């Protein structure tokens, strides 16, 4: 079927797809352009001159909010959530390769973690901490709240990976005398490494952008999305767009770097096999 001429259906669908991509990226490029608004420019087009005034403004002391501090907190939290998500999902993925009592229930608990509305998780953890007399902070309660969102993704990806994983390689390693740790470290881990990096990317970006779950759990100090949300209601200058541009470029960098690592691994493996 791959040798026919392109049909009308193809061109119609391709046009639809192009529109969809425009729909996804168009508004983002609007704020990208507007963040270079001149010092006297407003929140909408046209551009009133071109400047980096609003980017400079971003790094000055703000009347509202603390951009640098909230970025540092979100970044650190993202890394913590990433490391935990990768480790816990990998272990759970390994566990689910065998039958164990309560396995099905744990699987459904992970699914439930995806479907429970985020604001309910936020409220529940907030109330739980206050009843226990604990002070909510971004690295305790917000950390746990983020994990309820990132772990189900990690666990499901690990399910899919191990479902397609042939036990033949492990058996071969064992037959050659490898211990179970050696089998894991030298056979299983290298094979699943690209997927684990993918899980890490999910863990980091989902946490870095998470907002609803942080609402009641961040405590005294805001994370970056909370800061931005606060700005949407009381900031009326393009500094908001500058912040949007900077965080979006940061996300793009993280995604590109991750893809680069995955591609690099694949290339190295290809060369080793050749």
């Amino acid at each position, binding site marked *: 079927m791959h040798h026919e001429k392109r049909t009308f259906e193809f061109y119609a669908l391709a046009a639809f797809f192009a529109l969809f991509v425009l729909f*996804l990226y168009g508004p983002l490029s609007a704020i990208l352009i*507007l963040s270079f608004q001149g010092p006297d420019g407003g929140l909408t087009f046209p551009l009133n001159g071109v400047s980096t005034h609003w980017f400079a403004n971003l790094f000055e002391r703000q009347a509202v909010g603390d951009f640098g501090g909230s970025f540092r907190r979100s970044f650190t939290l993202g890394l913590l959530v990433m490391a935990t998500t990768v480790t816990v999902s990998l272990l759970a993925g390994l566990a689910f390769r*065998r039958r164990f009592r309560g396995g*099905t229930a744990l699987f459904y608990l992970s699914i439930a973690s995806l479907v429970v*509305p985020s604001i309910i998780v936020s*409220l529940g*953890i907030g109330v739980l901490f206050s009843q226990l007399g604990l002070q909510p902070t971004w690295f305790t309660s917000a950390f746990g709240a983020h994990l309820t969102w990132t772990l189900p993704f990690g666990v499901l990806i690990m399910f899919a990976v191990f479902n397609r994983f042939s036990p033949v390689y492990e*058996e071969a390693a064992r037959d050659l005398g490898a211990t179970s740790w050696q089998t894991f470290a030298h056979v299983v881990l290298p094979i699943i490494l690209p997927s684990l990096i993918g899980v890490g990317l*999910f863990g980091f970006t989902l946490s870095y952008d998470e907002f609803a779950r942080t609402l009641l759990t961040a405590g005294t100090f805001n994370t970056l999305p909370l800061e931005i949300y606060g700005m949407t209601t009381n900031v009326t200058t393009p500094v908001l767009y500058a912040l949007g541009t900077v965080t979006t470029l940061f996300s793009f960098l993280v995604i590109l770097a991750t893809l680069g690592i995955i591609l690099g691994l694949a290339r190295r493996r290809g060369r080793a096999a050749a």
Partner: protein
Amino acid sequence: MAVALDQPDTIDAASPAPARRRRGRAEAVPYLQATPLFLILGVFLLVPIVMIAVVSFWDYDFAQMYPGFVTFNYTETLGSWVTWKTYLNTLKYAAIVWALTLTIGFTVAYFLAFHVRSTAMQMVLFLVCTVPFLTSNIIRMISWIPVLGRNGLVNSALVGSGLVARPVEWLLYSDFAVVLAMVHLYTLFMVTPIFNTLMRIDRALIEAARDAGASGRQILWNVILPLAKPGMAIGTIFVVTLVMADFSTVQVMSGGQSASVALMMKNQMSLLQYPAAAANAVVLLVLVLLLVAAILRVVDIRKEL
């Protein structure tokens, strides 16, 4: 990176034979491996939900909560016309956004899976769709403001071309803006699972249908669509639960003119009316779980994946 659901039983069946040799020690291993996941979800999901259920029966005033067993948090919530209107409004958003994301998501996934010929190109285009999903929702939401606003791009174009005399007011801060932003934010949750199931369809089935004389439309309707159901169901679960839980899109894009259940909860929380918010949370949770259960009845994901 595609998200796939897999039935745990099929994974159990793949249990390697040599594991049986060292039964005694190996028995404990899966339990140890599953413990961190269980502990985290237990502490940060199960216990908080139980806590919400308990608190929803407590009394409260402007400053604090008082343990007890009162039911007025529920009777007040369910007895109010405003609550019912808010629930209906939220369900309306869910239905519209679901229908739109399903149509767009299926079309995009179908194009990627069946009309893009090289695997490399498929992956590149799929990533193009996925990348915005990994950036901030709030930024993506506010990026509509310069596009839809009174002096925004759309209005400038409309006025400039003479199509309308004055800027269209309902583009921003309206139900239209809320639905548009939700479709923008959530369509990817539909594309990914549908693309995943479409890629798994055995191409021989389509060849067979064509050999048997089926037209393109018949193949789409009678072969591909039924086989895509599990992906559509998973996407539906994502989109419906995300819309039902949404408060930020409704708040920002409607400019405070529309309400959703989660936004009502958020307002109660900012007034420190936690027991009232908790009662709403219980009702919302039951509603969402019923919806998910209904979707799982239509399509048995465990069986079909």
